[in-house]
């Protein structure tokens, strides 16, 4: 189980971004982390994968543990070795490499003998990539690039996969496919922490959900309950009982957020 306890993160020694965030990703679960822009979702992921120092941030309080072992003091490669994989926001594939080479970089820490088997597994999971294994990754479509980014992270065979907005900039149909892939990956035994703006998609596959606002977890419930929660439906799923919203109603939103006391 990946656990984040009371995590506090400060950027540039002055900007307090996370104010005591706790969350847990049990083995085999899909956990969604929702929140608006600037809530600190990506920062949580950075803290887990050891990328804070690149962004001049640091953990000032709290801990990140994987099966009880603290990992927040390790550097990024060691965290990968411990079994955590991350798919970064905006895909960040190596656009001059071929699909095959991208995946091989993903298996950088894997024993050499295992690489062919792992490649085969990824190509089974993503037949689209198998068709284009020799294509230069920069010429892939957005959806294919996202699949490549996920496949690349899976090459390290992580126990926990962190996904940062895998639906970003993709057509609804492609988002469906990515969603199904995440379900497949999870069924094969990898726990998933899914960071999303697309709450609809995230909550449809998650077991549990956390809602983050301005650096705090304001709600923490099983996904089924979140889907039914009136406020979540309004603010994150865009669903309302009444008809069209007028500007006056919008102004009322702030008042009606019960969790911000």
């Amino acid at each position: 189980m990946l656990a984040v306890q009371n995590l506090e993160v400060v950027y540039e020694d002055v900007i307090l971004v996370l104010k005591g965030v706790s969350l847990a990703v049990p083995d085999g679960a899909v956990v969604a982390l929702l929140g608006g822009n600037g809530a600190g979702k990506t920062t949580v992921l950075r803290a887990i994968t050891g990328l804070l120092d690149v962004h001049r941030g640091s953990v000032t309080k709290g801990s990140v543990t994987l099966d009880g072992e603290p990992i927040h003091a390790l550097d990024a490669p060691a965290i990968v070795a411990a079994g955590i994989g991350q798919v970064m926001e905006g895909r960040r594939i190596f656009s001059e490499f071929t699909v095959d080479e991208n995946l091989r970089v993903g298996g950088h820490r894997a024993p050499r003998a295992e690489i062919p088997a792992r490649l085969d597994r990824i190509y089974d999971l993503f037949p689209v990539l198998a068709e284009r294994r020799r294509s230069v990754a920069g010429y892939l479509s957005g959806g294919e690039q996202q699949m490549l980014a996920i496949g690349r992270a899976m090459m390290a065979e992580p126990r926990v996969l962190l996904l940062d907005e895998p639906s970003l900039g993709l057509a609804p149909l492609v988002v469906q496919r990515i969603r199904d892939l995440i379900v497949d990956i999870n069924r094969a035994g990898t726990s998933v922490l899914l960071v999303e703006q697309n709450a609809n998609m995230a909550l449809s596959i998650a077991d549990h959900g956390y809602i983050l606002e301005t650096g705090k977890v304001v709600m923490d419930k099983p996904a089924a309950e979140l889907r039914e929660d009136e406020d979540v439906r309004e603010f994150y799923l865009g669903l309302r009982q009444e008809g069209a919203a007028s500007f006056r109603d919008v102004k009322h939103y702030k008042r009606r957020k019960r969790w911000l006391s």
Partner: protein
Amino acid sequence: MSVPRAVRRGRPELYSDYAADMALLNTPAKRAWSAAILVAAVALPLLLDRDLLGLATQVVVYALAGIGLNLIAGYAGQLSLGHAFFMGLGAYTAALLGGTGGATVRGYELDLLVWLPLAGVVPALFGWVVAPLAARVKGLYLAILTLGLLFVGEHVFKEASWLTGGSGLGRAPAEAVVLGFDLYEARVLLGREIPAEGVFYLFCLILLVVLGVLARNLARSRTGRAFAAVRDRDIAAEVMGVPLVRTKRLAFTLSSFYAGVAGALLTVLLGYTTPERWNLLLSIDFLAVVLIGGVATVTGPIAGAAFVVLMPRFIETFAGSLPFIAGTVGAPGILNVFQLQRMLFGVMIVVFLVLEPRGLFGIWIRVRNYFRAWPFSY
């Protein structure tokens, strides 16, 4: 998985696995060309005179250093201006171990089998030590940091007169003697006399082929992919488990090794060296070798080295027939040959950056792709 010969016939581009695709000589055309170029290169000592052979050797040595710089600047994407310093370090390591001592300088007259490897290893160790510092910065900042290294190095070289002979004086290089066999002495081969430069040329050529194949092989390995991953997307590479500092450090170390070996060979070739030689201009020469030849290639720097070494000679030879160019400094004319060389050099770098960023190698790729698709346009 192998494809039957009958199916492969006429389809040089048909690969059935990654290993075949990534093989060093993966097409018959490549095999044929490599063999032809190698034969031509080996036959050179029989064809050229001493003067041109010296120039050819310089091309080979420059190519070696260029490949080294391309490892760090091209493959790993870390712009280094300190290349001349590492070459100097290699040259002086070699001169100290393999050279003759004198009134002011020390020398231990050891065998080439001792000094040549150490001429690579000492700069490599130094690179290994300074790399973690350099790994903290990237881009222009790294260029400035390595520039600082170059200046510090130049100063130390000037002051350490027991090693370098001191500023403006210089010292003789190491003796290229392997187990009593002098590599810088005229020999008879196939009934023909080959001048000393030719013998040394062949030796350098062997080193170039060996180290070139090693670099090319490295580029397609896990390490090579790690270099390129760090170059293209360093943070994404880190989340893949590619250790940034260790990867950059390895690139620095390897690059310095190549630089050191090339520096040692260059001094042997030139027969003399002063501390001023290992300056910024030399580093820029090698940036030109890489840029003109082709960034992140191994064949590129060889072409780039030929260009950088031969162009000044070319201009020198033909400038005499131009009316406004003075053959020597001080002779009447608007420019002298040396000024013209420098100017054309700068112009060529700009032209290549703008028109063909992949360098001579890029031009070759275009020509190759044209004929590969012929008679169709693509």
